[in-house]
């Protein structure tokens, strides 16, 4: 998505990206970003929660109005009104995506190696 923001901006449109992944927006380099600490699949808020959706959108419009140089990421103070475990479960698909299923063994090995590395003391 950051790539789409960059391409539309380069074509002469003023863009504002709302994302739960400011990490990725920073890596790609986005003109204007509002970061929200929300789960995936509900970027602007919960379904039918008009007030919450509008509050995020109003913040996004403010970032669009006030940002005067590219690459700025503003962080929304909005909190997600659902316990973390429940929110993580709610956004995920019923089955893992094909790529996650294919790469799971590789990623698990990587995570295991990292754990071993973080446990070892330098000089050991």
């Amino acid at each position, binding site marked *: 998505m950051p790539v789409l923001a960059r391409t*539309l901006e380069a074509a002469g*449109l003023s863009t504002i990206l709302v994302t739960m992944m400011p990490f990725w927006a920073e890596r790609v380099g986005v003109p204007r970003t509002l970061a929200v*600490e929300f789960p995936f699949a509900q*970027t602007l808020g919960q379904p039918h929660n008009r007030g919450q959706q509008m509050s995020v959108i109003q913040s996004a419009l403010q970032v669009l109005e006030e940002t005067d140089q590219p690459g700025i990421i503003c962080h929304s103070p909005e909190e997600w009104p659902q316990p973390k475990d429940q929110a993580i479960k709610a956004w995920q698909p019923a089955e893992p995506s094909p790529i996650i299923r294919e790469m799971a063994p590789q990623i698990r090995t990587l995570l295991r190696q990292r754990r071993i590395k973080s446990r070892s003391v330098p000089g050991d």
Partner: protein
Amino acid sequence: MPVDSFKYLPRIIAAFYETSDCQPELPIPWTPLRRPLNESKFGLVTSGGLFHKGVEPPFDLKRERQEPTWGDPTFRTIPANISQGEIGVSHLHVNPEMAESDFNVLLPIQRFQELAAEGRIGSLAENAYSFMGYQGYPPDTTAWRETYAPQVAEKFKAEGVDCVLLTPS
């Protein structure tokens, strides 16, 4: 407090993102606002895999299932007068139920119609556009950059759009 990108990500998916290496290409593009927001026309774009049921096909998930390192780079057109029942969601990486229940969580057409009625923005474009965010692994956004996003930009500009709000899923 800065937003934690990994708060709602299971560790296996967080590792997936962390292994995707990327450096920003500089300079970052920049188009200053042409006019105040209450005179600006807005376009909406999501990468949530939304499509207009019965009018356009869903994204090509069949090919993605057969070829997991590939993601459909095309886009779909969503007219601003669409009703909830006409919205489909095709995306294998997120639960589609939230947008199937209220598309405004990803494509805030009704919120922007309200903002236009209140005079906070000038107007909303006749059509919004939807992509499907998974662009393969490692991600390949060449088709987005070179073909499909420029087409959406042209469509917006032909409609006189000034500003675009983008929302991934």
